[in-house]
């Protein structure tokens, strides 16, 4: 999944983003999205999706019976999301503004491949806001690139990632950064990790963390 740094290039063309991301991840991305929709979202849940992109995950969650609010800062992506997940509430909003959606409103907050686009400061801020926006007993579902825990895995991931990062940077003048210290951040916020899955030599992870139901 180190190859995901080049997602920024694919984002240039929202119309074909999904198909190309599928190719770039050997179909893995669809399996992860299906797993999130099937196992980590319940019918009737109020879900906030940070960085909904083309709305492919939003559509799956709506199919499952959830009510989805999706936010993104790309109007091009939102336009496609409106076609893919027409019954979701789709808003042009930065992740830093999710406090405007209200406190303790959501049963699930889902972020796939979006937190890695934030700067460390932004990430910290969004993390706090997200926890505030979660209901008690609500869950935070994060699927993103992370720094692998073992040294040799990190070296291998870097070998794959670096050249692609250079290419991405040359084409889009931007990139993503693998999340660091996610576990630490989650436990510091008092959330309990209920599920964790690592893929591709630990370079990619799916984490589900729960906000305590009573304090």
């Amino acid at each position, binding site marked *: 999944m180190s190859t995901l740094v080049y997602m920024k290039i694919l984002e*240039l063309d929202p119309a074909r983003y999904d198909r190309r991301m599928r190719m770039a991840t050997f179909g893995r991305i669809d399996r992860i999205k299906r797993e999130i929709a099937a196992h980590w979202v319940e019918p009737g849940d109020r879900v906030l999706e940070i960085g909904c992109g083309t709305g492919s995950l939003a559509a799956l969650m709506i199919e499952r019976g959830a009510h989805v609010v999706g936010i993104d800062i*790309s109007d*091009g992506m939102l336009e*496609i999301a409106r*076609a893919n997940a027409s019954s979701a509430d789709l808003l042009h909003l930065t992740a830093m*503004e999710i406090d405007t959606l209200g406190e303790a409103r959501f049963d699930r907050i889902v972020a796939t491949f979006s937190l890695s686009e934030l700067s460390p*400061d932004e990430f910290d*801020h969004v993390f706090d806001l997200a926890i505030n926006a979660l209901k008690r007993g609500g869950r935070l579902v994060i699927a993103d690139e992370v720094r692998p825990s073992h040294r040799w895995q990190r070296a291998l991931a870097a070998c794959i990632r670096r050249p692609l990062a250079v290419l991405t940077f040359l084409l*889009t*003048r931007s990139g993503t950064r693998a999340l660091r210290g996610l576990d630490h951040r989650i436990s510091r916020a008092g959330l309990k990790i209920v599920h964790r899955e690592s893929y591709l030599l630990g370079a990619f992870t799916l984490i589900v963390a729960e906000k305590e139901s009573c304090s």
Partner: protein
Amino acid sequence: MFLNLLKDFWLLFGRMFPLPTTPGLREAGKPTRSSPVLVTCNFDLTVRKVLRTLERSGIDAWLLVAPSRGINVWCASGAGHFTADTVISILKTSGIAGRVDHRKLILPQLSGAGVNIWSIEERTGWKARFGPLRIEDLAGYLERGKHRAEPSERRVKFDFTDRLVMGTNLGFSSLVFFILPILIASIWLGSFWWKSIVLIFVLAVLNSLLVFRLPGKPGAARGLSLGIGAAALFLAVSWLVGGPPAGASFAWAGWILFVATYLGYDLPSWSPLWRADRKELLLGKRHTRIEIVEEKCIGCHLCDVVCPVGVFRRNPKTRRYFVADAGACQACGACVENCPTEAIATNFRSAVCKCPTCAVINRVNALKEERTDENESVGGDIAPESACCKGDGAASPESTTAEPAPRACDCGPSRGEHR
């Protein structure tokens, strides 16, 4: 200190590459709860220069360094990396709201191509306003306390120092283009490689410094004029001092002519004055159109405030604005982005810039048009935020009937430091 010198040296050549510094809140002098709040990009050079200038002019201010991906203000805003979203992000994460009593922001004028001040006000309550184009003029702007900078403070310039630095940068970026053929030719021609590198740098700097004095239209024509002069001089000197044999001299003259023309063609993308429109630079044809729909104009003067080249003027009778100098328009889209009544009609559409991002988008748009021609439905348009230049998003409804013409974008290689 040493690191800064190293960065400055690099910036003589590699200004087209981003050089990020940590986004966040900086203090200039000793700001208080009523001190002005300024916003800038997180291009290292810009932040250092802004802080230095503020210190020198004795201004106490809060400086919000927004996450523009390490790109300078103008390029980042043109490429969708410095938008209302970026400013909102730094407003929220920096905690500035707790440090001041007012809710007023001063933005750099050149951020207008990406930042919509109405969106910031609507979403955060902060009243944003465009300050002067250069940070040097900020002291005067603050002192006068007016909402808009003087016309002279709102225009881009291309003065000697800028031209010198852009010349060396142009040389370096052109090297990327020429290096492979030069190295291959050097297998047979020996010392050709270093002579060519010197030639490229000398011609690039000359092109940039003399650009106002060369005959012809900006672009390839001016480069050609310089090339003819330089090649003639070279032939004359080599004939006088008995340099290389005639055949080799003519080959060198041809090479000088070619390099100079290419550099002339590429120079506008390094200048703040001319657009990097490929067709215009090669053939001298202009594609972009801009006009104000008079009935919609409310005379708010925002288009004039954001325009870096002075396209607009106010009609004193109607108190509305009109396009006075369409020829100067760089199609940056700042006026379109910020016009509260969508009164500005343009045919700016796709990017026609030589930077890699634009090249990709142009290709995508061309493919999309081909597909539309084949009556195949196309889902959605290119993402304005992630893409360089805001493409269709910048066009107003009036312009949709217009024949799709390229939108020029100057956000290719990065430009002046303090923008």
